[in-house]
């Protein structure tokens, strides 16, 4: 995987379905992830987007960055809107009102739109078994509204609603494990991904689109603005997240867990934390607490992978 990334630009289609000219911040790894996902999904895709960064940067009327059909309705309902689009197209094809062909249905939202306000609509759509892919672009806070904490914000991170205070040192809860929640719906495919590993990401999106039934992909999307790190370090931060084991890359296909990017010896989690301003207030004791948690969670995942379930 490491070596193929060198040739990534040759392996990836040159066609863009999420066009240049959008209004994302410099170094936005989420916009990069969206671009890669759009490439992987291809032309015959319909996108339902939640409110959030990716919606506001790509659709200020009368402009659009979307070269595939795209709809935005509200914040918490991307999964429900995608359910409707999928059902509508399916029935129109069945009744012969539009020609039959394979169309990919993609719902996308941020971590707030997925693991907080949108978790109910997502759970409903996964349970009903719509043939669609749901992608959570996780930048670990409500970045669009100004870096407020979400249930996906990691322990210790300073945000504008979990500031590093004299008494409370930033976020005091552990990140909600959304991929596991999705997997608990017994859907055919769940994966984690990160645009720092573009080939891995694209392969997973293609697989999710190919598989019949619901698929869920959780993409760690480094946000230089909210994470307080220089834009040119966004890709590196994503790599460190994977290499430290704080965000392992794996997939769950029909219940079977598998690492898609194998890391030999995990990097100390401090390497990842210390490059980001949002963790700059953490002392060694807190870093050690986080290290222990990462070891434990990584161990749990590893066990599932070794057991093959």
């Amino acid at each position: 995987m490491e070596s193929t990334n060198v040739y990534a630009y040759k392996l990836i289609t040159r066609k863009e379905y999420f066009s240049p000219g959008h209004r994302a911040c410099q170094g936005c790894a989420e916009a990069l992830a969206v671009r890669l996902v759009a490439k992987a999904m291809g032309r015959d895709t319909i996108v339902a987007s939640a409110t959030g960064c990716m919606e506001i940067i790509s659709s200020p009327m009368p402009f659009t960055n979307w070269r595939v059909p795209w709809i935005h309705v509200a914040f918490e309902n991307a999964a429900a809107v995608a359910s409707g689009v999928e059902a509508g197209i399916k029935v129109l094809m069945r009744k012969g009102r539009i020609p039959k062909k394979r169309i990919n249905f993609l719902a996308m939202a941020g971590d707030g739109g997925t693991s907080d306000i949108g978790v109910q609509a997502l759970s409903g759509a996964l349970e009903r078994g719509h043939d669609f892919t749901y992608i959570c672009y996780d930048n670990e806070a409500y970045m669009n509204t100004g870096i407020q904490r979400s249930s996906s914000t990691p322990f210790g991170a300073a945000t504008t609603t979990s500031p590093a205070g004299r008494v409370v040192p930033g976020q005091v809860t552990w990140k909600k494990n959304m991929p596991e929640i999705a997997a608990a719906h017994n859907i055919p495919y769940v994966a984690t991904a990160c645009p720092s590993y573009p080939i891995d990401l694209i392969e997973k999106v293609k697989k999710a689109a190919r598989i019949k039934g619901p698929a869920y992909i959780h993409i760690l999307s480094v946000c230089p603005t909210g994470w307080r790190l220089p834009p040119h370090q966004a890709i590196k931060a994503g790599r460190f997240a994977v290499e430290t084991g704080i965000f392992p890359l794996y997939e769950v296909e029909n219940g079977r867990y598998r690492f898609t990017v194998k890391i030999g010896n995990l990097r100390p989690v401090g390497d990842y934390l210390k490059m980001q301003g949002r963790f700059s207030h953490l002392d060694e004791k807190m870093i050690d607490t986080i290290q222990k948690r990462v070891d434990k969670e990584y161990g749990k995942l590893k066990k599932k992978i070794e057991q093959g379930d």
Partner: protein
Amino acid sequence: MGKRIGLEVSLSAAEAVKMADVDCIAAYPITPQTHIVEHLSELVNDGQLDAEFIPVESEHSAMSVCAGVSAAGARVFTCTSSQGLALMNEIVHIVASMRLPIVTILANRSLSGPISIWNDHTDVMSIRDCGWIQVFVNNGQEVFDHVLFGFRVAESQNVMLPLMIHMDGFILTHVIEPVEMWEKEQVERYLPPFKPVHSLHPDKPVTMGGVGMPYIFSEAKVAQDEPLIQSKGEIISAWKELGDIVGRYYNPVETYKSDDAETLFITQGSYGETVSMVVDELRDDGKSVGLVMDRLWRPFPFDEFRDAVKNANNLIVIDRAISYGGQGGPLAIELRAVLYKTKNQPNITNFICGLAGRDVTVDDFKRMYERSMEKIKTNPLEEDYEYYGVRGK
């Protein structure tokens, strides 16, 4: 002429949805709407209706699914009540701005709290300004006819707006009434297949629901309000054509013995039928009374309403909702404004009654008439209103 059968009104609503050949139904149960979605699920599971039945996990998702289906270019139906409408409120507003022709039945029920499952119009008034076409119906036949009318108007390319049918919970949803079904051929003549102006398809990508920055937001809202106002033309012609096909003619404002009446009751929804009996009985007693029923709530039929009340001295406005701390019932507030500049303004007395299903009988309306006659002698102010039949008042 279609077959006339005795049927629970909710079931006849579902039968009308079947006749409209909807493509998708988004359904979440809430009393008193449940019988409609139950029957629709039976029709789908028995193969009588080729549609996707999407049993969503909330009303918020029900309306969101409707948005997706409609944007994909398919015909979609949902129905709800009260708290369900309150939960989907956010999306109710958005689909109007997106010009998605969703048809919804609202089985009217009071909004919490206290929680109640019974009928009034507090849910209706919570979405008065949501940008939908809204019509009230009085009985089971009107429900049936207006489902087909609803899709016909909403999907008209000059309109392309969602449409809500207000149907009193329990008073209509749970009673058996004679309903004349339409013939298949009549439906085909009246309701053409849905041809969306834009739809989501990879062969012709469109972006729907983009951001409205300040430089474009106002223009977008005007572009939403104008077609709603103009939809009245299409509404009236769709009613005319409906009458020509099935022999029942509907109007934005319905009247009963109103032309020569000194005093007019003004109602919305199923109370109209009760009050028509009241009118007959009061007329037998020599009182000059008539009835005006508002059928079209949005766009409001200003001309028709002013014309219907032009000869009356007194209006008794029956409200089934409250504008807390305001001028009484929402209907009365609006009618006072509508009549503000007319010559010979009538006296308006406003009664709020029948909240959460409390029965309002013929005798109650007669007492309201008497009370109104007393009140007008005192020349009541604009903000005057009265809760009828409330203990301790």
